[in-house]
């Protein structure tokens, strides 16, 4: 007992009160500096672009300019696009992306865990997975358009294919890296083979899996947009294709920004998920940047 109490004391040790405000002030100054520099960089970049276009150093017809792009987005938001209201286009693309992401991620996790836990399966399938992974998967988009049509299914399928391999690879690796000691410990404590998988293998693979989710949402978005680009009736990909067809550079950039906003929101949602799922991970002591 005595040791426990002394450990508790040492844990609650904090810097002396005179140092604390100074550290806080220093951290605040640093945050201001970083944020200021970030905004400054953006202003210089956009301002330079706008200026270069207006002074005729670059041709705004090909490269557009920030004010044109802003105007385009404003127009889309207020008057709608040539193929319907903007929010509808975003929603269609988002639906394809999320569906493809979820299906691909679930399939990837299931296959990764199954193959990671079974040596024979892993040895048999590994060669085919390597081959399938080396195919440029975007090309499959054309096949999906032919076989599944111009509707949502072909885009979802492409997104699934894009997501599956990334998640699968990480889940497989994560399962393989699970600490052998922890597995032996669980078995001796009385865990059945299934309990070892659910209580030890999957939790320890979780940080690998979530790392792959960050990347693969972006891939799902690429799959959906490329699918729309190749042939569709709705969605941001079609918006880009239309803008390209009419030599509307500002339209392409505007669609890109809309996509970026969608991706950023999704990314922050995944980070939120990560923080709730992996709250047992030690916190970083010196947090820098964001």
């Amino acid at each position: 007992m005595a040791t426990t109490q002394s450990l508790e004391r040492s844990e609650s040790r904090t810097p002396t009160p005179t140092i604390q405000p100074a550290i806080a002030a220093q951290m605040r100054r640093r945050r201001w500096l970083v944020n200021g520099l970030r905004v400054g960089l953006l202003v210089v970049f956009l301002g330079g672009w706008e200026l270069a276009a207006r002074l005729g150093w670059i041709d705004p017809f090909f490269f557009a300019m920030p004010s044109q792009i802003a105007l385009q987005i404003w127009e889309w938001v207020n008057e709608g696009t040539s193929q319907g209201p903007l929010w509808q286009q975003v929603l269609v693309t988002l639906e394809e992306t999320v569906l493809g992401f979820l299906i691909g991620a679930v399939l990837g996790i299931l296959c990764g865990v199954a193959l990671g836990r079974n040596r024979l399966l892993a040895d048999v399938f590994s060669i085919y997975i390597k081959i399938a992974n080396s195919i440029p998967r975007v090309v499959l988009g054309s096949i999906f358009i032919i076989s599944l049509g111009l509707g949502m299914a072909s885009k979802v399928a492409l997104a699934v294919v894009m997501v599956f391999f990334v998640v699968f690879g990480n889940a497989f690796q994560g399962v393989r890296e699970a600490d052998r000691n922890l597995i032996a410990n669980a078995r001796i404590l009385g865990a059945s083979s299934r309990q070892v998988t659910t209580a030890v293998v999957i939790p320890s693979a979780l940080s690998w899996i979530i790392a792959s989710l960050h990347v693969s949402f972006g891939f799902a978005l690429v799959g959906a947009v490329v699918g729309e680009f190749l042939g569709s009736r709705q969605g941001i990909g079609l918006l880009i294709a239309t803008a390209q067809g009419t030599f509307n550079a500002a339209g392409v950039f505007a669609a890109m920004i809309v996509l970026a906003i969608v991706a950023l929101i999704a990314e922050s949602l995944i980070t939120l998920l990560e923080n709730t799922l992996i709250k047992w991970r030690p916190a970083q002591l010196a947090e820098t940047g964001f």
Partner: protein
Amino acid sequence: MALMMREPARSMGRAPAPAADRAAAIELRNVVRRFVTPDGRSLTALRDFDMTVRRGEFCAVVGPTGCGKSTTLTLVAGLARPSEGEVRVMGAPVAGIDPRIGFVFQQDATFPWKNVLDNVVAGPLFRGQPKRAALDLAREWIRRVGLAGFEKHYPHQLSGGMRKRVALAQTFINGPEILLMDEPFSALDVQTRILMQGELLKLWSEGQASVVFVTHDLDEAIALADRVFVLTAGPATVKAVYDIDLPRPRVTSEIRYHPRFVELSKTIWQDLRDEVLISYQRAQKAAE
């Protein structure tokens, strides 16, 4: 205090296997354990290995680094099978993992994604106990290892010694009749180690478990055990067995000043030193 010391029982090699001993908790008879190395060669870790642990007895196993001490534990635990010979637990041959066995690992084997309470309650829940009763039992064990108030802490928030306490509670909660310990305190600093040794003896004296405690620390072996097995350099076999006739209950922080302790330590070290030297010379040769 009885000052009887048995002459070191030299292992007789391939003696005919005696009938299963009723009073024995663990028996290893003529056990051989070979590994296949990645390049396809066979490597012998244990040869002609004979060992008997009586019920309720605390046995320590010492030997040079890498001689195969831990291998004996994995065989008894049912995590591995002997290549030849027989391993019996409570009179019956080992077939798979026995629920009566508890195992404390050298490295941290607490689940990092579970807090202290969930770590300790893991065993009873794996074994299908009702959740409420299991949680009550877990809280009781957390208190007994001196971690009350830390139920919601995660392992990374605890010190090495506290994590070992979690590991002990996690193992003891299952009420093991046989306790296997693989250098459990070797990663701790010396002061914490002595505290944990005392803690272990206390927990052990409250139950009736038979213990096999593997260590490379001879003083630790003598301070804790009823008998000390000295192994040869790998492939390991039992070189000698010593009875430790120090009085119980022992205070681990003071027992090492006991004259009998010093005497035993000197005698056993004579035996162990030769093996350590052989092992060291081999390692040097392998490095060249």
